[in-house]
């Protein structure tokens, strides 16, 4: 079962390239034939000569980023992009969502759909579609939203996962908040699940966990690729009966996004360390899970600086009051464990008060209207991932993104109140009404997540 990826804009193309790199090198590691072939089938298509060609369509409104990704993939010698699987124009979208959505998207619709159709037809069976993009710029956000609409139109029964990179809070693009608000509001109606990485968070991982002194976008993209790869590589799920799941996106969606108001997913991966330290470290599942659980509750994305004071409400009684300033309530959680001795890892109910608290199924972590057994899913795969002997990834539908989202909407609203930059959007075809609609949708989402407590 294969996933077709659409890489949109500079960020989408850079992240996508890093992802395929990780997937390919992980798949070809060691002697794991079944895993290998399952992974390759999922992400690559093999030519008659034995070349691995990524199942991807690269889209950008200007050629530089795409050319870079294509040539770097070719240089790796291990995999490449399809020769004709890309589409670019000469002039970008100018960081303008309206330019991307109202002008470029429709103008190039046919060509893009053609490329997608070709890629989808190369798959024996389609597991779903994944669009990778940023929300700050013009192409990733605007054209990305339009393309997601097309995907929904042309493949109404397929699962669509959107991977979004949120920009640094202290500005990369001045109108990033407008672009983000417009994108998120539209995607909420179209996407099955929205998986988010924030540049700020990943940057901190690079500096504090990976000890990188001069952090480049390449470093940031590697971390994102590692976390995404940990989710997307083949895994044994509860339903897959001993073989690698044939429906990865479907299972992801059914575990996590059971309600249309709640689609925002965040990711945490443990451990993350410089490759030079890996040889000297040993990991135990109880320790990894204990840290991961606390990372979830206190809403930290790194195993450093975790606030161990934050605790879920004690006892069986769930009160509506806050138990601590930063307690993060979840709707659903998916734990993906990969590596040695994975079947010994305990994640369920807390049975013994003396053992470290690794109970993910503790009802106190969750909102009251979903039973904790349904809210937690665990996928255990004995195959190690990306050179880590043991690796645990937590995909969470929780309040983790509430604060950043609220921040983003607040800033966009402030700017909108003064009508700054609005003339730039209006001249490409959207109206102030469209802005207001988007703001309304997102306030609704914020309100829903707020009420999880």
């Amino acid at each position: 079962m294969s996933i077709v990826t659409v890489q949109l804009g500079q960020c989408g193309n850079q992240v996508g390239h890093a992802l395929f790199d990780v997937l390919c090198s992980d798949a070809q590691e060691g002697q794991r034939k079944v895993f290998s072939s399952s992974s390759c089938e999922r992400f690559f298509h093999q030519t008659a000569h034995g070349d691995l060609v990524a199942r991807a369509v690269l889209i950008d409104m200007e050629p530089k980023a795409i050319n870079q990704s294509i040539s770097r993939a070719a240089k790796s010698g291990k995999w490449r992009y399809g020769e004709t699987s890309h589409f670019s124009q000469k002039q970008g979208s100018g960081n303008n969502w309206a330019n991307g959505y109202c002008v470029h998207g429709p103008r190039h619709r046919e060509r893009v759909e053609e490329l997608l159709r070709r890629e989808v037809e190369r798959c024996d069976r389609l597991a779903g579609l994944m669009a990778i993009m940023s929300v700050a710029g013009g192409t990733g956000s605007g054209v990305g939203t339009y393309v997601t609409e097309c995907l929904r139109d042309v493949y109404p029964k397929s699962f669509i996962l959107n991977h979004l990179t949120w920009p640094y809070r202290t500005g990369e693009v001045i109108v990033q908040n407008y672009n983000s608000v417009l994108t998120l509001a539209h995607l909420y109606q179209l996407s099955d699940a929205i998986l988010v990485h924030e540049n700020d968070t990943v940057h901190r991982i690079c500096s504090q966990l990976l000890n990188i002194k001069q952090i480049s976008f390449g470093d940031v993209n590697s971390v994102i690729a590692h976390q995404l790869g940990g989710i997307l590589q083949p895994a044994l799920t509860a339903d897959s009966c001993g073989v690698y799941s044939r429906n990865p996106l479907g299972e992801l969606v059914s575990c996590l996004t059971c309600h249309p108001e709640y689609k925002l997913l965040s990711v945490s991966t443990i451990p993350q360390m410089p490759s030079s330290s890996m040889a000297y470290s040993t990991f135990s599942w109880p320790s990894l899970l204990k840290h991961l659980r606390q990372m979830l509750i206190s809403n930290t994305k790194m195993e450093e600086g975790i606030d161990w004071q934050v605790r879920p409400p004690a006892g069986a009684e769930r009160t509506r009051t806050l138990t601590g300033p930063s307690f993060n309530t979840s709707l659903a959680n998916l734990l993906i464990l990969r590596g040695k001795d994975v079947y010994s890892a305990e994640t369920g109910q807390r049975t013994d008060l003396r053992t470290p608290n690794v109970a993910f199924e503790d009802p106190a972590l969750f909102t009251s209207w979903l039973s904790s057994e349904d809210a937690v899913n665990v996928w255990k795969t004995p195959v190690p991932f990306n050179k880590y002997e043991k690796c645990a990834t937590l995909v969470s539908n929780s309040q983790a993104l509430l604060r950043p989202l609220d921040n983003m909407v607040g800033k966009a609203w402030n700017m909108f109140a003064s009508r700054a930059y609005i003339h730039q959007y209006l001249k490409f075809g959207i109206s102030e009404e469209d802005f207001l609609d988007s703001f309304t949708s997102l306030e609704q989402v914020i309100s829903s997540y707020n009420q999880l407590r």
Partner: protein
Amino acid sequence: MTQSVVVQVGQCGNQVGCRFWDLALREHAHINKKGLYDEALGSFFRNVDSRDCDGGASVVGGRIQHLKARAVLVDMEEGVVNEILQGPLREMFDSTQLLTDVSGSGNNWAVGHMTYGSAYREQIVDKLRKASEHCDCLQCFFLIHSLGGGSGLGTRVLSLLEEEFPEVCRIVTSIYPSAEDDVITSPYNSVLAMRELTEHADCVLPVENQSLVDIVNKIKRMSHDGKPGSVIKSESTVISGQGGLSGAEKPFDAMNNIVANLLLNITSSARFEGSLNMDLNEIAMNLVPFPRLHYLVPSLTPLYTLAVNVPTRRLDQMFSDAFGKDHQLIRAEPKHSLYLACALMVRGNVQVSDLRRNIERLKPSLPFVSWNQEGWKTGLCSVPPVGHSHSLLALANNTCVKPTFMELRERFTKLYRKKAHLHHYLQVEGMEQSLFSEAISSLSSLIEEYHQLDATRGRFMPDAPRLSIAV
């Protein structure tokens, strides 16, 4: 990859333009070792097979045969253009790109804008159209002119550009006269021109002669200093034309080189690759929150490179310098006014963490308007300019341009009150007194718009109340 066309108007425009083409060639020669006509070169130059009498351009990827600048040169006096045609850059321009006349505009905006503007309208449009037809995907027109002299033709060209090519971005580099300008009527010319700039340009990069003079003097002082540790690499200074085609330096060359470098840096990310590209249309999008407030203060660093190797500390120094007064191309106090938006275009081996670190460091000392506290637009281009390992261009949309405009208005009013020299303008056909009053009122309302924003500085602005959702 997109192309840009440079339209250089008048004596000043053409002199600056000439330096631009020289330095552009130098920059590309430095990077393009294989002699292939690549896309980056294509953004400013056409590659022409001189045996082909049609002058048709050859495709990207072939060998460089004969480069022609994507430029249109206009001047109502032929002196400067003739000099260019006799100089080492003569091969870059063919006759279809030139438009000259003999007598000049006599430092009279009305003569340039009205008389010559109408007389030569068709020819100008024709040449512009030709230049744009040679382009695969024309993104931007760069107009270079001064405001003090007979700036009329420049502004006429600007309005023609808007009429004929409304979709193409118009970035205007305007040289503002200093108070001691030797052209008496420069305040009239400037204010009449400013109205056109406010109405028809997408972005204006104001440059003051005095600031250029100050920068030139500063560099000359450094090079004559002779102190150990302060020896500069002479070809790396922002005023140097060394390594270019032109031999000896002419009087205004040093100053004009600075403006030429400004244009090279602005277009660097559109021409070369990097980890965070910044195209020309993104500049207008991010830096212009309200249509008329499009005057961007440019700052260039470094001005020179020391001959010794530079540690990372220097990198942070470069960011600090960009916000210091010595590196601005107009005299103004941005730190005492309000930033509406700011763009940082970094070239060379600089990573995103360096950029973030410096933004965090400098932010507290820079007052930004309340609704744009994080008003930074950033770009990273991997290719540094010639002679440097990295460089930074800062473009700030800041209310500090208000005093400059107010001064201009005052100098205008001094003359206008007495009706001094007015008859020279009014006797030109098409010119009416109402144009004067409209121009000054346009300037006044521009100043007022900046003033309104300035008034919010330092005041606590509460957040706009959010939409409330029925639960």
